[in-house]
C-alpha cells in the first residue's frame, strides 16, 4: 500500500464543521489513528473524543486532512506545510486555482505532498482510511487486494473498486487525486509510488478529458517503461465538442487542442496502457492481467 497505512497518524483541519466531524467519525470507525483536530478558536474542545487544537503548530501528525471551507483552504494548507506536515489531503472542493498553485509551490519548497483539492481521500483497505472515501454505504465497494487505483473522480473511486470487489479482486490503495485545474498530486506522481509498492500488481487509472495528466503518464511510460500492467478508462469522450466548458469537474475542460480524449487515448495506447472504452470493461481487463 502507498501513502497511508495502519501507522499513519492523522489530524483533521476543520474538525468541528459538519464535514470534518463526519470524516472524524468515519475515519475512527475504520480504525484510522485520528489523533488531533484543528479549528482556530476551538482549541480545548473534543470531537468524537479527538482533542481539538487552535493551530497546526500544536499537533504532530503524519497526515492532515483539510475540510475547511474553500476560502480558508489556502491558510489551512500554508499552516500545515509550515508546521512540517508531509502529507496534506484536501477534500474541500471549489478552491481558487491561484490558492492551490501557491500552496503547491510552498509544499515543493518544504518537501510536503499535497493530494487534492477536491480529493475524496485515500484508502488502503483494511489498514487506513483518509478522508471521505469509503464512508457510509460505499464501504461495500472496497476490499483488500492487489490493484492500485488512481482516480480524478471521487465517486468513481468507489464505482471502480466496486466492480473489482464484486469480481473478488481487492485493492491495495485507492487514491482520489481530484480533478481541479491544478492538483497537488498528479496521476504520474501516484503511479510512480505504486511501482515500488509490493502489494500492488496492477494499476487502474480513471482519467478524464482536460489537462495533461494522462498524456504525461503515457510519455513517462514510453520513456522510462513501467514494470506493472496499467489499465485506463478515460471519461468525457462525448464532450469533445464542448470547448472551454467544465463538465462536472473544474479541470475537465478542453482548451484549444489541449485535453482532448482522442489524444489521451492514443498516447496511452502507444505506451502500452490497456485502455477500455466502457467503465465496466475495467474488471474483465484487470482479471486478464492478474
Amino acid at each position: 500500500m502507498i501513502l497511508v497505512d495502519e501507522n499513519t497518524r492523522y489530524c483533521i483541519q476543520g474538525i468541528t464543521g459538519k464535514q470534518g466531524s463526519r470524516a472524524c467519525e468515519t475515519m475512527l470507525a475504520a480504525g484510522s489513528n485520528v489523533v488531533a483536530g484543528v479549528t482556530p478558536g476551538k482549541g480545548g474542545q473534543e470531537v468524537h473524543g479527538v482533542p481539538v487544537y487552535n493551530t497546526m503548530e500544536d499537533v504532530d501528525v503524519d497526515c492532515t486532512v483539510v475540510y475547511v471551507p474553500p476560502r480558508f483552504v489556502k491558510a489551512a494548507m500554508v499552516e500545515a506545510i509550515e508546521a512540517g506536515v508531509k502529507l496534506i489531503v484536501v477534500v474541500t472542493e471549489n478552491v481558487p486555482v491561484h490558492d492551490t498553485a501557491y500552496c503547491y509551490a510552498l509544499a515543493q519548497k518544504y518537501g510536503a505532498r499535497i493530494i487534492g483539492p477536491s480529493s475524496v481521500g485515500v484508502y488502503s483497505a483494511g489498514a487506513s482510511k483518509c478522508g471521505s472515501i469509503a464512508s457510509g454505504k460505499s464501504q461495500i465497494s472496497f476490499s483488500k487486494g492487489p490493484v492500485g487505483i488512481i482516480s480524478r473522480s471521487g465517486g468513481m473511486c468507489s464505482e471502480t473498486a466496486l466492480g473489482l470487489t464484486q469480481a473478488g479482486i481487492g485493492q491495495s490503495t485507492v487514491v482520489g487525486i481530484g480533478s481541479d485545474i491544478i492538483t497537488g498530486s498528479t496521476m504520474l506522481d501516484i503511479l510512480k509510488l505504486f511501482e515500488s509498492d509490493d502489494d500492488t500488481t496492477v494499476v487502474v487509472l480513471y482519467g478524464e478529458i482536460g489537462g495533461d495528466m494522462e498524456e504525461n503518464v503515457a510519455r513517462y511510460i514510453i520513456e522510462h517503461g513501467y514494470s506493472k500492467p496499467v489499465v485506463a478508462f478515460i471519461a468525457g469522450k462525448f464532450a469533445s465538442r464542448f470547448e472551454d466548458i467544465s463538465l462536472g469537474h473544474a479541470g475537465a475542460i478542453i482548451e484549444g487542442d489541449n485535453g482532448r480524449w482522442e489524444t489521451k487515448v492514443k498516447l496511452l495506447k502507444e505506451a502500452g496502457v490497456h485502455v477500455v472504452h466502457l467503465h465496466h470493461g475495467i474488471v474483465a481487463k484487470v482479471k486478464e492481467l492478474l
Partner: protein
Amino acid sequence: MKLKEYESKPLLEGYIPFNPCTIVHDTKLVYPCVMKVQVQQNGRGKHGGVQVVQNEEQAHSFTSKWQENNFNGETVDVITWEPLVDIVDEWYIGIIFNRSVRSPQIIVSQDGGSAIESADNTIIIVNILEPIERQVNSLPEHLRDTVCKLYHCFVDHDLRMLEVNPLVNGVALDCVAVTDDDANYRRSTTLSERTLNRKATTREISARKIDENDHRGVAGKTYMDLDGDIGIMTSGGGATMTLMDALEHYGLHPANYTEYSGNPPQEKVEALARIVLSIPNLKALLVAGVVANFTDIHATLQGLITVLKEVKPSYPIIIRRAGPNDGLAKKAIEKLKQECGLNITYYDETTSLTQVVEHLKEQL
C-alpha cells in the same frame, strides 16, 4: 468563465493601456475605426468579424450583416468599435496555468496572430513564491514592465487565463480573459450567465436557481440542454461523464447534462426533475449514480416520484441507485410503478453503472 473582448479589456485598467471598445449603439463612431463582433470564439479576424470601416455606410453594412447572421453558430449580441491604430511592433502575451508544472506560465511571442503554437516563443515558468519582476530577464527590455503588470492583473483578478494579442507600442488592442469561477466570492462584480457559445436557455436558468438559496447538496448547478432525447438525472461529476460516454457508445444521445449530489433535500430534486421532465420529445429517462456515501436514496428519489406521478411519462425510466435507505427507495418505486403503470426498472449496485445503459438500449 471565458469573457469576451469588451468584458476582458476593462480588467486591464490600472495595469496597462488598452484601446477601449465602445458598444456601437452607445455613441457616434469616429472614422476610420475598427468594428468587431463580440463573441467568445477565437478567429474573429479570419471570419470577417473584425473590419476597418471608413464611413457610416460601411459601418451600417457591418452592423446589419452581423445582426442577420450568427458567427459560427454564436449569436452576435454586441458589436463594438474602437479607434484605428497603426500596427507596428506587434506582440502576443499570454498567461495561463501550466498544468504539468502546476505554475503560471507566461508566453511572449512576436509572431502574434493566428499561429501562436508554432511561433518562436519565450516561455517563463513563474515561481509564484518570488516577485515576478525578478523573473522577466529573458524578455526584450521594453516588454518587461508590461509583462509584469499583466501578471499582476492575472493574479489580482483571479484569472485562469489572460491573453493580449496584439500588444502594439505597449497598448493592448485585443484581450481575452478567463475568470476562475471558484474565486467569484473575491470579485465585486457579477458576471452574466452563459452556456457554451449561446445564451442560457430557460431550463438552464431555472436549473441554476435551484441551488441559489439552498446550499444543502447540489442540484442542477451544471445543467445544460443538449440535442439528444435521453433525459438525464445523474449524480456526481465523474459518474455523469462516464454515463454520457456509455450512452454515446450505445448510440444514444443525452437531452441534457446535469447532476445532483451531496444529499440535497427532496424539494431540490423535485425542482430538477420538473425541469428534466419538461424537455420535449424524450425517449427515456436515466437516473443513476454510484453507491452513495450519505445521500438518502429514498428521500431524494421522493422528489422524482412526485413529478413522475404528475407527468406519468410513457417512455422507459431506468434507475440505478444504491446507498442509505435504498431498500425503502426500491419499495417506493415498485409502488409507484403499480399505481401509475409506469415503465420503470430499478437497479442496485449489483448491476454496474454503465451496464444499465446497455439495458436501457435494449428497451428502446
